C-alpha cells in the first residue's frame, strides 16, 4: 500500500461530488469509491464525511433518497443535483488550474526565471 497523504482543505467536497457523480452512493459507498478512484492514497476520517455530506445537501448540491445497500441494509443514497453537477465542473476546472500553476512553479528552473 502506497504511503497515504492528508487531504488538502476543500478537496473533500470535490472528491465527494466526483464520487457521487459516477453513480448514486450511500455514505460508506462514497468512501469506498473515493478510495478506489484515488488509489487509496488519501486519508479520510470516516465520520468527518457526514458533516461534509450534510453541508453539500444543505447547499442543494446533493439530493438524498432512502434505498437498500448491496448488503441489504437500509441506507441513504446521495445523488448529484443539477447545481451539484455545475459545481463539480467548476471545482474540477479550478483544481486543474491550481495543479497547472503548482506544477509550473515546482518545475521552474533557475535559468528560466
Amino acid at each position, binding site marked *: 500500500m502506497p504511503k497515504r497523504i492528508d487531504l488538502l482543505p476543500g478537496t473533500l467536497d470535490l472528491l465527494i461530488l466526483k464520487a457521487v457523480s459516477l453513480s448514486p452512493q450511500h455514505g*460508506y459507498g462514497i468512501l469506498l469509491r473515493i478510495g478506489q478512484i484515488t488509489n487509496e492514497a488519501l486519508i479520510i*476520517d*470516516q465520520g468527518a464525511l457526514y*458533516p461534509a455530506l*450534510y453541508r453539500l445537501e444543505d447547499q442543494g448540491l446533493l439530493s438524498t433518497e432512502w434505498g437498500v445497500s448491496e448488503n441489504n*441494509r*437500509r441506507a441513504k443514497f446521495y445523488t448529484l443535483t443539477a447545481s451539484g453537477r455545475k459545481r463539480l465542473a467548476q471545482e474540477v476546472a479550478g483544481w486543474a488550474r491550481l495543479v497547472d500553476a503548482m506544477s509550473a512553479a515546482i518545475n521552474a528552473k533557475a535559468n528560466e526565471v
Partner: protein
Amino acid sequence: MGHRIWNRILNRRRWEREMAEEMETHIEERTAHLIEQGVALDAARRQARIEFGGVEVHKELCREMSPLVRLYDELRRNMTYASRSLVKSPGFTAVAVLSLALGIGANLAIFNLVERLLLTTLAVRDPQTLYQTGSYQPNGQFRNWASYVHYDSGRKGNTDIFEGVLAWSQWTMEVDVEGHQEKQLVAFVSGNYFPMLGVQARFGRTFTEEDDGPGPSNLAIIGYRSWEKYFGRSPDVLNKSIKVQNATFRIVGVAPPGFYGTVPGDPPDVILTLHGNLNFNPNAITSEGMMWLKTMVRLKPDIPLEAARTVYRERAQQGGKAMRMKLGRLDQPEPPTLVPTAGGYSEVRNEFSQAIIVLMALVGVVLLIACANLSTLLFVRGAGRAGEMSVRLALGASRGQLVRQWITEYLLIAAAGGVAGVFVARWAVDALLYFVREDSRQYLKFQATPNMMLAAIGLTLFTTLLFGLLPALLSSQATPGAALKESQRSILGRRRWLARGVLAFQIAASLALVTGAALFVRTLTKLNSDSGNTARSEIVYAHVRYPRGTQAPDGFVDDITDRLRQSGAFAAVSNGRLPLSGGGGWSWATVPGYVPKPVEDNIVYHAWAAPGYFQATGIELIAGRDFEEKDRVTPNQVIIVSESFVRHYFNRRNPIGERVRVTHDPRYVEIIGVARDVKYSGLRGDLSDVAYSPNPRSRGGTIIARPASAGQQAAALREIQSAVRAASKTALIETGTLEEVIQLALRRDRLVAQLSAVLGLLGLLLAAIGLYGVMAHEVISRTREIGIRMALGAKSWTIVSTMLREAALVTGLGVLVGFPVSVFSARFVESLLYGVTPSDPIAFVAAATILAAAALLAAFWPARRAALLDPVESLRCE
C-alpha cells in the same frame, strides 16, 4: 429544497433518527467489509467504530451544517432557558407580565372602539363621498334634522353640487309579522336610498324613486334576519303582508344580510318608504315643522369639498325658498356645513369619538410607561445577571447567542403579556360598554377580528422592541473578564444615568396622566355641582301617559298630582317639564322696546309648569308670584321668565307686568314672575333664557315631586306609582329620580373621568414600581459602600437621606420635564373640559403632589433597608 428544510424542522425527531441510522449503517457496512477482509467479528466491530470516530461529535457537526436546524435547536434551548429563568424569579415575571397585559389590554380595548366607531366605513358604494348636512350648535352638538319639505327642496335645489340626497329615519314600532307581534326597528327611507348607496336586495327588489309618493305607500322591505326567522328564507315571502302598528304593508324585497344602512350597528327589521309614514303621520310629507328626517348627500365627483361647502352655506343663508335647501331647521342661527360621514351616522360616535381619541392617547402613554418600567426592571435584573453573562461568555457562548437568548426571554414575556392582554381587553370592553346605550353594546362589544389580532401581535412586538432594546444592548456589552473581576455595581454604575433617564421619563409621563385625570375629575365634579338646582338630588319624577289610541280622562295627571299633594308624603308635588332633561321647545323672543343687535341669539326656551312647579323643582322664584289655577284656564296670558331673560332684555328694569312674545302665538303675554337661573337641558349647556308657561290641565305629562324627608325617593316613587294605578289600570308610567337622568347625561364625562383616573393610577403605580426596583438595586449594589460609611460613623438617617436624594433627583427631573408636556397636551382636551382651564393650577399642583408622594414612598422602603444594614455584615458581602 425549501420544503425539505421545513420538513427537517417539523420532523426534527425523524431527522435525528435518520441521521443516527445513517451513521449506524455506515459502521455496519464497514464491519461487514472488514470481516470480508478476514478480520474477526469482534475486532471488526471495534475497528469500524474507532475508524468512524465519535458519533456524537459528528452528529453535532452535521447539525451545525444545517443553519435552520441549528436555529431551531437554539430557539428551543433558549425557550427552555428563558422560561426556567422567568419561573425562578416569579415576582419579576408577575410584575412584567401583568404590567404589559394591562398596557396592551387597555390599548386593545380602546382600539376595539376606535375600529368599530372610527375606522369602519359603511358597506356601501364609495362611502368616502358621502356627507351629512347640518350645523354645529355653539355647544358643539351637531343638529341635522330636516322635514320632508326641506329634504325635497334641498334635493332639487342643489343638483349642481350633489349627485344625490337621501333621507331616512328609524324608530321602534309594533310589528306583526306572520302572527308574531314584536317591537321592531322600522326605517323609513327615500326612494333613492338604495340606488344611491349602491345596495342590491338579497331577494326581490329595493325601492326606487318611482316609489316616492304622492300618496301613502304600502311597500316594505324586510331585514335578512326577519326573512330567516319568520319565513325560513322562503321565496314565497314576496307579496306577503306585514302589519306595522295598524297599517298593512306588502313585502317587495329582502335586504342583504347584516345590512344596517346608514346607521352602523342598528340593522332595521322593516324598511318602508318615506311616504309609508303617511299611514301613521298624515302630515309627514307636507309639514315644514315636522323634523323627522336625517339626510345624507353624495358630492359630485368633480366638485371640491370646500367649494361645495361655500355654495351650500351661501344658499342656506340667503333665506326664503333657498333657505329650505339647507336640509335642516329653518331657524338655526349657525351656518350649515357638510360633514364627512363615510362611517355612517352614529349617535354613539358623535357622543364618544372625541373622548375615545383622548382615551387612545392616554392608554398609549400607559403602555409607554409600562415599557419603560419593564425596561428599567430588566436593566436592573440584567445588571444582577452580569456575572452569569460573563461566565457564559467565558465558557464560549458567542455574543450573538447571548443577545438572541435575551431576545427570546423578552419575547416570551411580551407574548405572555399579549395573550393576557387580549383577555384584559375583553373584560375592559365589557366594563366600558357600561357607559354606552344598551342597544349599541352588541355592535361595540369586543370582537377578535383579524385587525384586532394584528393589533395584538403588533403591540406585542412593538413593546418588546421598546422595552427590550436598551437592556439587550447593555447586557451584550458584558465582557468575559470584567464582570468576573469587578463588582456588579460597576456594570450598573457606568450606565446609571440611562436608568435614571428612563425613570425620569416614566415620572414625566405619569405626571401627564395624573394631571389629565385631575382635570377630568374636576370637570365631572364641576358639572355635578353647577346645575344651579340645589334640590336636584331629592327630586323624583313620573312620566305618565295613556297608551296610543286610548283617551285619558281630562286632567288625569292633575288629579293624581292633587291626590299626592293631599297624601302628606311630599314636601311639594307638581307637574310640568322635568328640569335638566332633554326635549323642550323654543322660539324667538320679541320684547317691545328692545332692539336686537344685528347678529343675536334671541332664542327663548319653553317649559310647562303647573302651580307649585317651582317648589317641587327647587327652582327659587326671586320676584313676582307663582302660577295659580286660574292662570291655566285661558292659555297664553302669563309667563314666568328666568333671571338671564331679564338680564338679556330688561337691563335692571323691573320686568313684572311687562308684556312680551315668546311663542309662535302672535299675542303678547304678561310676565308675572322671575325664576332663578338653572340649566335647561344638559349640564354642559349655558344658562339659557327660559320662559315658563302654565300648562293646560293635561291628560299626560310629568309629575315632579320632592319627598317630605330626604332619602325617601324609593318610597315616594312607590307612592306615585300606586296613585297612578289607583287612577287607571292601563296608564303607562315611567319613573325615576332626576339624579338618574342627570347621571345618564353625564356618562361620557364619567367615562373619561373614571377611566383617566384608573389609567393615571396605573401609570403612577408602574412608575413607583420602577423607582422601587432601581432604588432596591442601588441599595444592594452599594451595600459595601453603605457598610463602610456606617462603620465610619454615618447615622442611619444620613444613609436614608442619601438614598432619598437620589430618588428626589430623578422625580424632580421627571416633574420638570413632565410639567410643560402636560400643560401642552392638556390644550388638546379642552373641549372635553368644563369649568376648568387646561392649565388649572389646582389640578397641576394636586398631580405633582400625588406623584412626589408616590415616588418618595416607593423610594423610602429601599432607603430604610439601607439604613438598617448591619455594617459588619455588609462589609463581608461579595
